[in-house]
């Protein structure tokens, strides 16, 4: 095991990844010969989260919400603009390339498209064996044996060691990607839409494999997907991103049963349900418009231009992630929760997304029983009906 500089405090033991105020801006360049920066894409804007050992943090959000950028920052594939990313207690944003190398073993990635993430001209055995070659941990016959063990573990025939990726189906290729990610026994695997390119019947095979591997090796996953049911199935905690920020985070069941951010409510109501009665019964909240440009995100709450509950304050003051107070005080109308202000983040990561608390960044959180579909008609209707 790589010697880590970690000096974890006692309550840090369960935390594998800690992201603190991560910011990632991409410059927008213009001009001919002399390029100058005319703007910034606010891909990830002040995001904090924790990922516990052996657990899965699901990250949902629409295109352009910054979830993939955040994942790449966690993997150390792109540097953050500011903020810190701790893996096992080590801040990877300050490390040199050389010092980063042993840490790279701890974090691996599975990509969305099993067709473009495997080199078509290299044999499967070589592809899966690459991590061993790069980190010089196994050579020759030993490498081959290890690769074949991995292939068997992910449900591929080890005899297909010498085949090319083109000879495998989509689901099998994703298994190759899983085997490659697993090779160095990482602690964290970042899964960026790992099943979206697969057929329905194959999705379940890969999801089951990922859950088996998690139990067997105690892996943590950062699981990105746009399919909310898939995320619910695999995740312990879920964070919802919108335009570079986390709008709401909670343990999975809690988030799906009692969503508080209007965006989460809309997202859940928009998700297709493979059940005609559920589909007919639910009231869909049709959000108007599209996600605004991350180059010039709206002032105040970033969701306010599309929010059925938006009021004046939403356009001015950016809401902070605060703990759900209504759980402690039943009947709380949400206004108090907003007034309560920002709670200090506990070292256990209680109030940090990925921790155990239900946190929401909204001035007027949705309360159970509230009907957002009708709230849209009366813009600024505020609290709506409390059940």
């Amino acid at each position: 095991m790589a010697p880590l500089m970690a000096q974890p405090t006692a309550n840090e033991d369960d935390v594998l990844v800690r992201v603190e105020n991560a910011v990632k801006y991409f410059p927008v360049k213009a001009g001919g010969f002399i390029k100058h920066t005319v703007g910034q894409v606010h891909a990830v804007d002040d995001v904090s989260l924790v990922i516990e050992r052996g657990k899965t943090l699901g990250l949902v959000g629409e295109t352009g919400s910054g979830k993939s950028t955040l994942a790449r920052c966690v993997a150390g594939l792109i540097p953050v603009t500011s903020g810190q990313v701790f893996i096992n207690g080590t801040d990877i944003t300050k490390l040199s390339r050389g010092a980063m190398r042993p840490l790279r073993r701890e974090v691996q990635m599975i990509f969305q498209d099993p067709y473009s993430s495997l080199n078509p001209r290299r044999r499967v055995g070589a592809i899966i064996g690459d991590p061993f070659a790069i980190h010089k941990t196994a050579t020759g016959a030993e490498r081959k044996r290890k690769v074949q063990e991995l292939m068997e573990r992910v449900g591929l025939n080890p005899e297909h060691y010498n085949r090319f990726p083109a000879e495998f189906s989509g689901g099998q290729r994703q298994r190759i990607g899983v085997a490659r990610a697993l090779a160095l026994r990482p602690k964290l695997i970042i899964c960026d839409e790992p099943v979206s390119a697969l057929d329905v019947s194959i999705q379940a095979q890969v999801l089951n494999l990922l859950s088996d591997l998690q139990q067997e090796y105690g892996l943590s996953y950062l699981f990105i997907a746009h399919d909310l049911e898939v995320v619910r199935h695999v995740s312990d905690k879920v964070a919802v991103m919108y335009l570079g920020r986390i709008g709401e985070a909670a343990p999975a069941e809690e988030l799906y049963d009692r969503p508080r951010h209007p965006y989460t409510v809309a997202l859940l109501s928009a998700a297709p349900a493979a059940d005609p009665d559920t589909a007919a019964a639910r009231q869909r909240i049709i959000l108007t418009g599209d996600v605004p440009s991350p180059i010039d995100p709206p002032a105040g709450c970033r969701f306010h231009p599309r929010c059925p509950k938006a009021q004046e304050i939403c356009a001015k003051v950016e809401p902070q992630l605060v703990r759900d107070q209504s759980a402690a005080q039943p009947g709380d109308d949400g206004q108090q929760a907003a007034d309560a202000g920002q709670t200090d983040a506990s070292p256990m990561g209680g109030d940090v997304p990925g921790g155990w608390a239900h946190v929401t960044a909204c001035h007027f959180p949705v309360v159970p029983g509230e009907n957002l579909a009708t709230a849209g008609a009366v813009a600024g209707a505020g609290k709506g009906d409390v059940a």
Partner: protein
Amino acid sequence: MTLLEVKDLHVSFPTTDGLVQAVRGVSFDVEPGRTLGIVGESGSGKTVLTQTLLGLTPGADVAGSALFEGTDLLQLSEDELRHVRGERISVIFQDPLTSLHPLYRIGWQISEMIRAHEKSVSKKEAAARSVELLRRVGIPKPEIRVNDYPHQFSGGMRQRAMIAMALALDPRLIIADEPTTALDATVQAQILDLLLRLQQDSGTALIIITHDLGVVADIADDVMVMYAGRAAEKAPKRDIFYAPHHPYTKGLLESIPSSKAASERLKPIPGQPPSLINLPSGCKFHPRCGYVFDRCLTEEPVLHPVAERGSHASACWLPATAAGLSAEAEELREQVVQAERGAEAAVVAAAALAELGVSAAEDAAGDRPGDNEGSVA
């Protein structure tokens, strides 16, 4: 009157590797104002099927008939088909970015389509109609946006523009091929809502092709599930979801993660869809089927009615009464399988199980610590 009546359609493509049998005898009807959902995985033939109706599969060997308003689409000349396409039947494709020309303004592209079919329309009239169409599909400030290029539109707006184009000539049938697959969930909801509303307004029939059972549950009236170039099951929507007969339909429904069983292990279908060049014998689903018995290995089942419901048909050798997700239906299936399964089919079934077993067997060993978690949840 039936709007579209497809009978025993066969489509195959000769390739150097062999004959790709994309569609192998599919029949279905579409009534005016109804929505037919065609569900299937990649390679099930669902896209080739509809493209063939519109003459968009050059080089294919086509047999069968497709009566649209009484004329056989498959017998029409290229010229006659041009008039049907766009005017009578229009198509919405999956990826609006590649279906719009990047160098022409949105309004120009809609106008061009109108003027290509209605020669008497002036440029000015066509432009005015384009604006009106964009307004109908919910583009804000259409009189300004009509002069935008496709790249200035977001994904959802591009798909709206495609729908505007599809509506331009007031067709009787719209074929939407994975219209929302490239879109985000909230935008998908907008587009499905729009399609439903427009359909109610105009009485247009709609064929929606998708791999997403959620989309079908939402907007289809009838559903056809395709597997390996054939209809595995055809029924009104509720029967497909609540009383599926074909093991493939049942397998698809069970493999989707659902909120009802969030913590349970998923039940995937073992194996993968077959190669369309080298199809298995008998029922094409038998290598992946948990209920396989001897007859399945040699004889391919055709659609037969399920129970008394005339419009529910399934291509499976299991008895018609064995439909649904209930325990009784499951028991009935198991009885039939036990009585009919010989040695040969047992080998096939074991192979399918082993395919899943790679994870399942090790599961038994590796699952123990997780079992505790399962019981807590």
